[in-house]
């Protein structure tokens, strides 16, 4: 650079954007204030939407919440007598979610353990893609399948069969109608399965290789490493996966509406048609005229559902963030469960 050029740079003659000029221009443009405003605007819109969601729903449901008070949590849904409580639906939601989890957790954990640990990689990758494809299927399509394919199958074969299983039949009273709490639970289990598999497989894959090697060095078999090293190491991730799946099962509305039977009485067995919060909202919303106490009651159901799912999801997120404990509490190669290590021989000269 020649001295002239340096001078130019400072003076900033016409045509060449010098530092002074560009600083000047920067100042005129507000020092990137527009950009900062954009960022703040994005965050603000986001926050406003969230606040508006809560405020609007509370406002619309205020009439019913004021009418029922806290008893909304256990009173039934009887529009004829002006009682708009969420009790039956909360029971239905908890019941379907619990059964769905009972079905999906063992299957999901077995699948993810197989995909993460036991299957060869060339096989695991496509299988995993298939399981996760299930997550992409819209819930309405799963609902359609449940309604037209599973419903007759359950009414004809599955539910009569369950009524004859010795111990379990206590759970399955009543006529086999197809549409029932049970069918809704099965459909929910199918819908939350990919969530459980994907998230728990992810946390299993995150268990350090060194932990596995330590297990193998102690002569643990492949299964023992999976069961006693990988699963304990991924425990928090699995718990988070289950919690998030639970949130999804509770919030699902459309598919459940199509298969749950939509009965507003308290379910007395898994075979009886019932209602969940979601399905009750779908069914009652269009029936209720705007401005009535009933409409407000439906929105109150939404508020209850939202409250439950926010608690569950926040719990799941906190679990996801929490640090995984560094060392699993038990040694990996303890022998097959109860058999334990053989007591050390008294004779000190014996070595293996």
């Amino acid at each position, binding site marked *: 650079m020649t001295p002239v050029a340096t001078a130019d740079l400072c003076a900033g003659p016409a045509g060449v954007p010098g530092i002074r000029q560009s600083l000047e221009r920067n100042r005129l443009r507000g020092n990137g204030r527009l950009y900062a405003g954009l960022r703040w605007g994005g*965050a603000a819109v986001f926050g406003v939407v969230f606040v508006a*969601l809560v405020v609007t*729903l509370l406002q619309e449901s205020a009439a019913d919440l004021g009418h029922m008070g806290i008893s909304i949590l256990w009173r039934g849904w009887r529009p004829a007598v002006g009682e708009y409580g969420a009790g039956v639906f909360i029971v239905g939601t908890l019941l379907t979610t619990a059964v769905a989890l009972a079905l999906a957790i063992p299957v*999901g954990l077995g699948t993810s353990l197989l995909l993460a640990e036991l299957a060869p990689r060339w096989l695991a990758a496509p*299988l995993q893609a298939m399981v996760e494809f299930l997550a992409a299927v819209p819930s*309405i399509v799963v609902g359609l399948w449940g309604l*037209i394919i599973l419903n007759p199958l359950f009414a004809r074969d599955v539910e009569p069969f369950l009524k004859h299983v010795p111990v379990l039949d206590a759970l399955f009273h009543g006529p086999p109608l197809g549409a029932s709490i049970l069918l809704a639970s099965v459909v929910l289990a199918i819908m939350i399965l990919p969530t459980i598999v994907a998230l728990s497989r992810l946390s299993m894959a995150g268990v350090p290789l060194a932990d596995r090697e330590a297990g193998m060095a102690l002569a643990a078999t492949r299964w023992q490493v999976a069961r006693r090293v990988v699963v304990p190491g991924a425990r928090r991730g699995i718990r988070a996966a289950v919690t998030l799946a639970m949130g999804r099962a509770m*919030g699902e509305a459309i598919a459940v509406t199509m298969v749950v039977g939509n009965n507003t009485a308290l379910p007395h067995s898994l075979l009886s048609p019932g209602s969940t919060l979601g399905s009750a909202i779908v069914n009652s919303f269009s029936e209720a005229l705007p401005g009535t106490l009933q409409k407000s009651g439906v929105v109150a159901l*939404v508020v209850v559902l939202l409250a439950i799912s926010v608690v569950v999801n926040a719990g799941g997120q906190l679990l996801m963030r929490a640090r995984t404990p560094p060392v699993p509490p038990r040694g990996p190669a303890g022998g097959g469960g109860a058999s334990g290590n053989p007591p050390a021989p008294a004779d000190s000269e014996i070595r293996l």
Partner: protein
Amino acid sequence: MTTVPSALGPPVTASWRRELVRQQARRRLERRRRLGRVCTTLCVGALCLSLAPLVSLVFYIVARGLPALSLGFLVHTPTPEGIPGNGIGNSIVGTVIVVGLAMVMAVPVGLAAALFVVERPGKLSGVVRFVADVLTGTPSIAIGVFAYALLVLTIGYSGLAGSFALAVLMLPIMVRANEEAMSTVPLDLWEAGLALGSRRPRVVRSVVLRTALPGIVTGNLLAMARAIGETAPLIFTIFGSQFYVFRPTSPMSAMPLTIYDNATQLYPSAQQTAWGTAFVLLALVIVASVLARSWAGYLNRKARVR
């Protein structure tokens, strides 16, 4: 081999004990292996149970949906029960318009909010992130009712209200995906850009957004794929329509709504319409998901060539 101790009590030698322990270990290993085999078989069973619904689902959608498909089905409007020439053209157009408008609303806000989180690591952005995570799990039916209370009660049933609901649904997913993509941009690149004397917006535009573009595209398109299939936010907002509607301020139809309305009717022809629509909807979702990944791959390759 050492002998087994007799009733007289043999001499307890070191070598005998060693052999005993070895035998025990061998037996135990056999037992452990057997346990492993049994449990692995159980896991394979679990995998089959996870795949069975998927296989059945895909089978029925193809077997029942494909016969319903024809060019007329894709372009015609619905006919009354029993009259041939039924179609879902209006629902396809409705889905495209409603989801497109939702993208127009959600994408810029999602980008700006993600930049906010990335640029100002602190308590406030932590709050934004946590709210996004919790909102991702919000029941979509609640979002539908929210859009109803906010928009339908003021401007009436309209495609716009549905778009708003879908935008609210997608926003948290987009914020998190964008943020994740942007946070993979190395700090060095930011600093290099700033060291060149570029102003911040310029660095963000030319360095950060460009580097993070594949991740951003994937995240936003996956959010879109999810929105395409959502029924609950639309059911109280867009109302449905039997005709081609191009004005977003009037009631419109969309594919999930068409499935819901037809599936709950008993006529075989209505169910066939539902299956056919489900086929088209699933195809659209798959195209969107595949596009999400392959477009990102294309952008990645392009970036590497440069």
